[in-house]
């Protein structure tokens, strides 16, 4: 509906000076390159799309532009003069505004106060001129064509409305560069459409906008130029005209990192049955099975509801409708205890927060889920605990200093093995692993993959949630794809490819055959 096609794109770059230009920026965290030699030029009156897989470096780039991180090398120029951003406040003062996916507003303050906090217009005696404040916010909302009452308190605003409040904040600060970090991820189609109208208004007024989205149709609707990042590197940066969604997908996923070969498993009896599971506003009508000796991967974008589904299965989160069955028996909802008793294990996404007790020893962490078995006359002897921990640590080849040292001393990969050991010690019939190798070095990654694969070989039903497509393709016998809370695709290993998964996850029409030059 917006009038932005590539033919009406704004003046070509050479005739206009970029308002912001980042040259050869690199940033490393603990020796790992998050961003390597990335250059970005933003022009007034242009919406610049930033796309890439999870972990491609988009967030790092946003944080550099927003003054949160300082690049290790590279230069930043604003309006032709070199600058060094000392922090978020500095970036804001220089006219750069970042609008995050879920803004943090003050729930108890009014919308207008949220827009103007710390900068409220004053009248005599340094008192806040609340009428002027409300009027100015009202003018902005009218200009943007959105009906939000400046006087209402922010509590209860939808995420879309909160973003609009953030945009109003940016406008009152005369921001010329607006960076929108996945603004549409949590919006309904109606809300997203309204946001596009606002973005188009801002663009027409001469703002330079960075728009991050996983939804490629949005990129093609409102953006004029695109930068694709992959593994921290800049893959392409050019006008969108002449590009197709397939081109972008190929640029996003094509990679040289070769992962382990997939080992097929022979599925046995049905272990997990999920029947029309629904949680209002989070996921809808999710049905699938996992069989013994099978690895099923749940793919999709971050925020598509994957973790929420597995948390609901395990009973951490509630669900509103539907049923979960384990080996033919209905599992009561909302009870992790019942889920454990039924033979489910969950290796959570955030192992430091939810998977381990960081202060306890490696042995204790391993024994934690099996204490009932170690109990003797109601007491747990330290020796039994240590032996138990030792046995399982050995089995999973955990590299530890002393089994009685706090688990926090282990590397991320070994910590993940400890979490796995904790659940394997219970001999689960279904193991759910949420992001099995996030933040784990490549070597240990392969070990964890082998471990999961051999588990399935022993007849355990495994459900893996992963954002890393090569991992999905290495592990899964079947791939389920979620998008916006719905299960949108189910493909056997033979039909699954990175392109097909990304296409399903982003809502692009799938091309059955990957182009020849992408094949690994």
């Amino acid at each position, binding site marked *: 509906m917006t009038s932005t096609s590539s033919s009406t794109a704004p003046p070509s770059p050479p005739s206009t000076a970029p308002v912001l230009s980042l040259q050869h920026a690199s940033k490393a965290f603990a020796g790992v390159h998050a961003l390597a030699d990335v250059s970005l030029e933003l022009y007034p009156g242009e919406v610049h799309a930033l796309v890439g897989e999870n972990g491609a470096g988009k967030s790092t780039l946003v944080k550099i532009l927003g003054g949160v991180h300082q690049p290790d090398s590279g230069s930043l120029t604003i309006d032709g003069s070199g600058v060094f951003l000392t922090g*978020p*406040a500095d970036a804001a003062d220089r006219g750069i505004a970042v609008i995050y996916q879920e803004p*943090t*507003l*003050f*729930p*108890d*303050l*009014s919308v207008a*106060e949220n827009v103007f*906090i*710390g900068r*409220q217009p*004053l009248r005599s005696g*340094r*008192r*806040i001129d*609340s*009428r002027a404040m*409300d*009027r100015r916010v*009202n003018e902005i*909302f*009218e200009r943007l*064509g*959105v*009906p*939000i*009452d*400046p*006087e*209402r*308190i922010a*509590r*209860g605003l*939808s995420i*879309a409305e909160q973003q609009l409040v953030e945009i109003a904040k940016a406008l009152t600060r005369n921001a010329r560069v607006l960076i929108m970090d996945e603004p549409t991820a949590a919006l*309904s189609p*109606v*809300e997203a459409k309204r946001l596009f109208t606002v973005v188009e208004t801002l663009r027409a007024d001469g703002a330079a906008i960075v728009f991050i989205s996983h939804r490629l149709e949005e990129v093609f609707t409102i953006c004029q130029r695109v930068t694709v990042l992959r593994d921290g590197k800049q893959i392409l940066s050019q006008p969108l005209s002449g590009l197709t969604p397939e081109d972008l997908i190929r640029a996003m996923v094509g990679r040289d990192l070769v992962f382990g070969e997939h080992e097929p498993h022979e599925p046995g009896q049905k272990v997990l049955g999920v029947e029309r599971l629904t949680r209002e506003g989070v996921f809808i009508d999710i049905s699938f099975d996992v069989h013994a000796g099978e690895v099923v991967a749940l793919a999709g974008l971050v925020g598509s509801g994957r973790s929420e589904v597995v948390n609901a299965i395990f009973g951490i989160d509630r669900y509103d409708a539907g049923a979960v069955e384990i080996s033919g028996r209905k599992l009561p909802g909302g009870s992790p205890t019942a889920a454990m008793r039924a033979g489910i294990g969950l290796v959570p996404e955030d192992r430091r927060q939810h998977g381990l007790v960081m202060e306890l020893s490696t042995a204790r962490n391993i024994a934690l889920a099996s204490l009932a078995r170690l109990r003797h006359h109601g007491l747990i002897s330290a020796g039994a605990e240590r032996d138990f921990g030792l046995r399982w640590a050995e089995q999973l080849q955990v590299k530890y200093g002393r089994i009685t040292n706090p688990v926090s001393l282990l590397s991320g990969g070994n910590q993940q093995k400890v979490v796995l050991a904790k659940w394997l010690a219970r001999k689960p019939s279904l193991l759910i692993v949420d992001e099995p190798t996030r933040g784990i070095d490549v070597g240990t990654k392969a070990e964890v993959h082998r471990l999961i694969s051999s588990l399935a070989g022993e007849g355990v039903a495994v459900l893996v949630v992963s954002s890393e497509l090569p991992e999905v393709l290495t592990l899964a016998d079947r791939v389920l794809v979620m998008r916006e809370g719905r299960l949108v695709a189910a493909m056997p290993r033979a039909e699954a490819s990175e392109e097909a998964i990304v296409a399903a996850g982003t809502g692009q029409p799938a091309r059955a055959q990957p182009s020849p030059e992408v094949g690994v």
Partner: protein
Amino acid sequence: MSTAAQTPPRPAAEPTADGTLANPRSLVDFVLRARTFGIVGILALLVIVTTLIQSNFLNGSNIRFILGDATLYALVAIGETFVVLTRNVDLSVGSVVGLSAYVSANMFQAHHGIAIPVVFLVGIAIGLACGVVTGLITAIGRVPSLVVTLAMLYIIRGVDTIVVGSGQVVANSLPNSFINIFHDTVLGIPDLALVTAALVAIAAYYLRSYRSGRELYAIGSDPDAARLAGIPIARRVFFAFVLSGAIAGLGGVFWATQYNTIDATAANGLELQIIAAVVVGGVAIFGGSGSVVGAALGALLLQTINVALNVLGVPSLWTEAIGGFLLIVAITLDRGIQLRLAAALRKRRQHLGA
């Protein structure tokens, strides 16, 4: 309560109002106002019911008794409200009141003929000093205020005990002009009530109309967002504790005028009654919302309950338990209203087809 009553032109209304539900703002406003009205309503109900049972409930001495205590509590509750709004708590106010009460009253023994305003200034200075210490440790040292002020409660009370020793100040050592402050009235209103009312009005106006006042709400509403917005959190929280201390110091002098006989246990446990008043008055215990007017009304309500129970012949052994019970009722009710409000707002959003 945060915004002025007058309504500037509303935004160009889309056809969003479906007519079946009030718009979210008026709903929120209504509930916020209902909190204050609710206290007034409960207060009225309490007075009416008690008067029906015991017709002499509203006699002069009872009213004076209620107002005397309630205004002192309301005064101290002003400072406590500032602290609680920032998502902190000040447990040391009872000890500050006690120390200030003894030291200020004792000045008449130590320095014969000392001017009364000087005594007031000394009381305020004592409270201010305590507030500075608490504020520094909490705001600059970033130690949780619950722990800091709990420690300060004992430290200040300990100092008080050492200063007082085994002695006490008795009424006949105080000049009549000092004692009369409690009984003096202007147009029939006690001096203390006038001072408290004036301070409540000033504090309410400050919290509503000044940037730094609004920032206290912002800090309590979402500390992380406050940091991102560049609000000087440490300075604001420090100020809240200093103010709370100074007002408690002032309250201590008034305490001396009221009770005359002061020993080391003066105002023992007062802090919990103050916090109860603040919470009953609708100030969110986790900060971000509430008003000093509400807190003052909360103090009045709690004091009226105490006197009413007494008048109704409820054994004094029971009054504390009943007071605690009523506190739970008030807070549970408030929480229930909040949840209903959130649910109503969510429901309405879905109506809009979000």
